[in-house]
């Protein structure tokens, strides 16, 4: 190393910097596929329609029992809950339950639980038409 001249050192340094930059970009590219995959799977697997539908129906049931069926219709809301649980387990492989708090000053709270093994979903909503 006796005859080394320091003139070209910046070229070497830039070479290292550029190669590190390329290396960094390559790592990002290699990660992007995996990130896209998990995101897409998250969207695909979320049972949006199931949950919306369940919610829609539960609110309808609640309305029916609180407005048209106060004196009893031969089947109570807890029976309906059991039916939803049973059919959900049988046909959708999902554990579903809901709970309805008693009507208080025209407001009641509905809580919905949904679990199909991949997605667990909890919701509390307040209805004002009871």
């Amino acid at each position, binding site marked *: *190393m*006796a*005859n*080394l001249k320091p003139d070209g050192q910046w070229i*070497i340094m830039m*070479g*290292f910097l550029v*190669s*590190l930059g*390329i*290396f960094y970009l*390559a*790592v990002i*590219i*290699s*990660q992007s*596929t*995996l990130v896209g*995959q998990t995101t*897409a799977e998250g969207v*695909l697997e979320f049972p949006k*329609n*199931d949950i919306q*539908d*369940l919610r*829609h*129906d539960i609110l*309808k*049931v609640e309305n*029916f029992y609180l407005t*048209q*069926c106060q004196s009893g*219709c*031969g*089947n109570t809301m807890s029976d*309906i809950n059991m*039916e*939803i649980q*049973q*059919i959900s387990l*049988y*046909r*959708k492989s999902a554990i579903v339950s809901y709970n309805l708090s008693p009507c208080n000053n025209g407001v009641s709270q509905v809580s919905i639980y949904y679990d199909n093994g991949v997605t667990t979903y909890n919701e509390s909503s307040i209805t004002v038409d009871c």
Partner: protein
Amino acid sequence: MVKGEAQLYTMEGIAAGLIMLLTTYLVLGSTSVYTPGDTHITDMQLEQVGSDILRVMDTPLSLNNSLVNYQPNRTDLELMVNRTNGTAFGNEFVNTYLCNPNAVAQGIAVGCSAIQVNASIWYVGVSNSTESYFLNGSYVGIGPGVRVTHWIHTNYMPGPPGSVPPDMRNEPQEVLVEVLMWRT
């Protein structure tokens, strides 16, 4: 006679080579996952369309509906389920909504004539077991299918004799309408 002038260049070359090798190793070694994106996307479309149709069918009737005399708070879907009117269900689901030339459902890639539908209902019967009743549909086709479902809360309403599944309970209850949709 070995001269020491180019030793730094040699070292740089080796370092650069190592970095390039490491980069290639990482890029090639990373898992590249190919998803069948197209089929997933159209399946989601089909599922959404089916789900929307069931929801539309489950809106309360208008006053001059031809299916039945005016019944407040009852929907087409509920009436069809109550009377297990599979023909009416098929007509409405496929002809009125899925194949309606004015409807967005036409936008599904292959058009509605290539889509097959098979519908059944599921309920808790008199013996407390889960029962099913076939509404309408076909069994032909090879395409991948999607399943759309819709919950109905129905107040049991006896129709003409023989038109209701005999093991259905005579009280308000939950019924799950299940429709399989696929391409031929």
